[in-house]
């Protein structure tokens, strides 16, 4: 082997070695966390094609078909009926009142919505109103003990005054921890 050939071989080896070390460093990264770290900006999925955006608060289909007799308050089906009782339902002059008793585990009542439908003497649905309990309002945060009962009152909408003869209620929203 000529001296020139040996020198060239050594140089080639050194270059190869350096490239190898460099490549290794690239693969390993410059420090902890540099290996295949995903881009946080694109990690969260924030759009759901095909999911129809809601246009308002939830409705209960049963309100459209309920035919409460005059002077009565009917109960219509909701998604959480197996974890609550409705009691003391009463149609007074200005609206419908009652009590929701949550029968499942209650460490905090976070959300509750009572939806009421108001009907004329023929059982025709005239309009609706809502009662909403939202944790953090009305001292419903962590300032008091857990409570399983929530009294509600849903006022008759102003434009229905004098024509309401019956009501129906249901619970479309319930979140209890």
């Amino acid at each position, binding site marked *: 082997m000529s001296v020139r050939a040996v*020198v060239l071989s050594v140089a080639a080896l050194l270059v190869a070695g350096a490239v190898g070390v460099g490549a290794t460093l690239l693969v390993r990264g410059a420090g902890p966390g540099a290996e295949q770290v*995903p881009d*946080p900006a694109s*990690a969260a*999925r924030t759009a759901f094609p095909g999911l129809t955006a*809601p*246009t308002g608060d939830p409705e209960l289909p049963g309100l459209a078909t309920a035919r409460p007799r005059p002077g009565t308050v009917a109960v219509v089906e909701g998604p959480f009926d197996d974890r609550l009782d409705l009691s003391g339902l009463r149609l007074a002059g200005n609206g419908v009142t009652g009590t929701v008793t949550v029968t*499942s585990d209650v460490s905090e009542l976070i959300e509750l919505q009572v939806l009421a439908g108001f009907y004329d003497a023929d059982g025709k649905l005239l309009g609706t109103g809502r009662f909403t309990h*939202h944790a953090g309002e009305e001292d419903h945060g962590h300032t*008091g003990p857990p409570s399983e009962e929530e009294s509600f009152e849903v006022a008759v909408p102003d434009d229905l005054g004098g024509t309401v003869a019956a009501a129906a209620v249901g619970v479309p929203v319930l979140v209890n921890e």
Partner: protein
Amino acid sequence: MRTSTRRGASRRVMAAAAVALAVVAGSVVTTATAIAQPDHSRAKNVIYLVGDGMGRTHVDAARQRYYGAAGKLVMETLPTVGQVTTYAVQKTSGQPGEADFVPEYVTDSASSATAWSSGVKTYNAALGVDAKGEVVPTLMELAKKAGYRTGNVSTAEITDATPAGQMSHALARGCQGPTYSAAACQDLAVTGEALPTDDVRVTPIADQIARNGTADVVLGGGLARFDAADEEALAAQGYEVLGSPADQAVATRDDLDDADGRKVFGLFNRGNLTIEKFKRENPNAVQAAEPSVAEMTSKAIDLLRNNKKGFYLQVEGALIDKRSHANDAAQTLEEMKAFDEAVRVALNFAKKDGNTTVIVTADHECAGFNIIGKGSYTNAEAVTPPGNVDAGNTANNSAPSRAASGALDGTRSTGPVNGSGSGNSGNFAPATFATPDDPEGVEDGSPEASLWLTYLSGNHTGAAVPVFAYGPGTRDLADTVDNTDLFDVVGHALRVVR
């Protein structure tokens, strides 16, 4: 001579070449050695277990109840032990150190879940958003994006704060579904005006979970939050759906046993799962077909483990908190035991696997759970708080001064609440439990039982919570850390954060 010189030069060149080769070879060997050395901060898998509401005293009481004073829960056998601060911040607050930082000393489960899931402080009720309402990515999303398989197990509704903190972004934890409502989903105090209803931050959490694919394995409760459209969306992503959201048919333990999909979605109750005490006492009840948190953990590991990159699994024992809110010590203790059995499953897997990190912690303490001396009583049972007068050294007195001691008030305390005083719903007296240290025949609820437990309130407290850890990347947890630091510990162990 010349030849000799040339030979000498040649030898020097050859020698230099040999040295150079040695250097290069050495570099290669060094590099190879560096590659071969295990990275002790890097885990292939991370199993993160949360005892919701589990304060230090929950651990102490469960240990004494089931293993006696000298025993240990499984979680207490993990070699690294520390404590975690849990405070939240108020709405629109900045992060710690920023000028507009406003702390809230007692956290809820949502704020705490966001802290370890996304590494930011946020307000109570927020999930996957910071205190100004900006979306922040979660560890489970980052892990998924990096190629890990992911799982989320809870004994609560899967839309509840702790599991939802890893796989949703919501201004308000109450926006769970199945339907949107403005009151439950919007928060004008944070955003100023109502967000469009297609914004993820006001999209019901159930809708998000059913469509974002963040967790490959989803096991828990809360079927009532999901509907037919959600089932369709899950099936379209390749999930094996146990039971049926469309039919509101809950999954069962048998369904779970038979599951073998790469993606599995199984909810075993329309609401939260059923407490273990009820299932134990009613083995023929329909609720007894619900799997335990340990069974779900075991199955989740089986479903996730076959992945070259590894997996990230979160497990929540949710009912510790829920029964602590109710001040029901008997149920709380059984939920602690059930959660500890899930820790056993995780730890056994980690020991066998050799490259799995297990972290056991809590989101906050609940109810000021405490252990008092046998035969003693709490302030809540007393006429007044303890006296605060030291006549011998007035320097020990402070304001207010109380000359009378806090004697037991017979109208507020009629004995152990789960024993002789159980007929009085207004009774503040302790719950008592027999332990392995007691003589045979001592019964729960009796004054003779040695473990006397009390509660401060029915709500969360601001106490720090314990953390127990095993495996790579957990050394930093042998300290007092903040709950946002858990994001960094897990993120670095999985190499998903810088």
